[in-house]
């Protein structure tokens, strides 16, 4: 695949969250507000690009028997570094993201890209692919985060958009939006919309139920 294709494919057509349903645990947990979603998206993209670069650089010398351990160790180290940087320079946001930055380590998306792409491609394409996937993930995270913050608290990035009843406005916040199930609903609607728009994303039914003729006495 050419470079531009590697980059654009994961944005919508092969989006890691909506098509491969990878990394949804974090997309549920950190999307209660747009700000945390943005920080998480940026952290994941950085970790993904750097770990793809590292894995791609050592791909010719990666023994098969320990390749997963080596990849996880690289990812985990990068995650710790990112977490420390956030705690030092974006202290307030890091407090709200709490454990979820650490959980990037176990985000299936990161290991999926290093194992599935970076391990068998040169550093250039590996990083472009990682960036595309990171941005595809970010896109969904930001969309879900914006919807949840707007309807759950009436704000975007902490700025009031819909004045709530408590502040003397007209908007009654939907508390459900702030709870994890709402992220499932929104994600479900996004997946539905995307698969309706791009029918090729629909999976073929793997097994059809056998036709059983009706028995008549």
């Amino acid at each position, binding site marked *: 695949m050419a470079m531009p294709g590697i980059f654009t494919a994961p944005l919508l057509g092969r989006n890691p969250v909506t098509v491969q349903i990878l990394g949804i645990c974090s997309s549920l947990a950190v999307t209660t507000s747009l700000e945390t979603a943005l920080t998480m998206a940026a952290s994941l993209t950085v970790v993904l690009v750097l770990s793809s670069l590292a894995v791609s650089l050592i791909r010719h010398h990666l023994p098969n*028997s320990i390749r997963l351990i*080596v990849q996880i160790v690289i990812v985990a180290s*990068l995650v710790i570094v990112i977490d420390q940087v956030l*705690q030092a320079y974006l202290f307030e946001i890091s407090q709200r993201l709490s454990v979820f930055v650490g959980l990037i380590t176990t985000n299936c998306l990161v290991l999926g890209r290093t194992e599935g792409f970076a391990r068998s491609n040169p550093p250039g394409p590996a990083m472009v692919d990682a960036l595309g996937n990171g941005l595809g993930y970010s896109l969904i995270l930001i969309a879900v985060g914006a919807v949840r913050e707007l309807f759950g608290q009436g704000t975007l990035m902490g700025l009031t958009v819909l004045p709530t009843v408590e502040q003397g406005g007209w908007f009654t916040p939907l*508390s459900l939006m702030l709870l994890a199930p709402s992220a499932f609903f929104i994600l479900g609607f996004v997946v539905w919309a995307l698969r309706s728009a791009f029918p090729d994303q629909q999976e073929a039914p793997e097994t059809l139920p056998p036709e059983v003729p009706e028995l008549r006495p």
Partner: protein
Amino acid sequence: MADLNPIHAWQRMLAQPNESRGKTVFVAFLTALACTLLVSGATVLLRPVQTANRAAETQARLEALLAAIPGMSDILSASEEARLSTVVIDLASGRAAPGVTPETLEAALLDTANWTPLSPEADVAGIGNRPDFAQVYLLREGDAVRLMILPVAGAGYNGPIEAMLAINGDMETIAGIAITAQSETPGLGARIEETRWQESFAGTRWQDAGGEMRFAVAKGPATTDYEVDGITGATRTSTAMTRIVRFWLGPQGYGPLIAAVKRGEF
């Protein structure tokens, strides 16, 4: 004679088949080494910034708490004598702890001998172990204590809640509260961080004339002197706040200290 040139040794190692045992160990070792250096480097380099962040946050919360209590900023700015002093107290006796200063408090609390395990019945705040020492802040005017700020903590719905509770000089009413750490549900329990809710603490009593603990976060608006407004949709967080305040103002918490201040020992 064996070739001892390290560059040749490196090239020989890389040229080995990937599946050989030597190369597997070699790659594992190098990866571990590189990652160790990366992680410890980042931790050591960034630790001073992180410590400063945490200290600055506590200080900012303290100042915000003082500013939010009616009349406090007047006292601080009007009188030269008014000053905020930091004391480490021994919770069990209610006196200043001998030999423990705010600087050595952190080290003292690393020693498990300085913690008291709580029985399940006594442990209403859900903290398990209570430190024997706590750093409190006293605001004096002349010799009289006008305000006492007490750090409190306990188990919330999603994780620990930490707060600073300010008590008026009469040692009978709460002056204010500031939440310093929490991980409650955003928009529901996390609303304990809102100033409007925290303002309802001002002037609340926590025990009646008989000394019985009466403080509670109400279900709905507060109806008595002993209650603060409830938070809609956050029953568990409200209950946790009730328990935290009750525990820390009770005999296992700052009760002895409050009694000592009342007797004029501070």
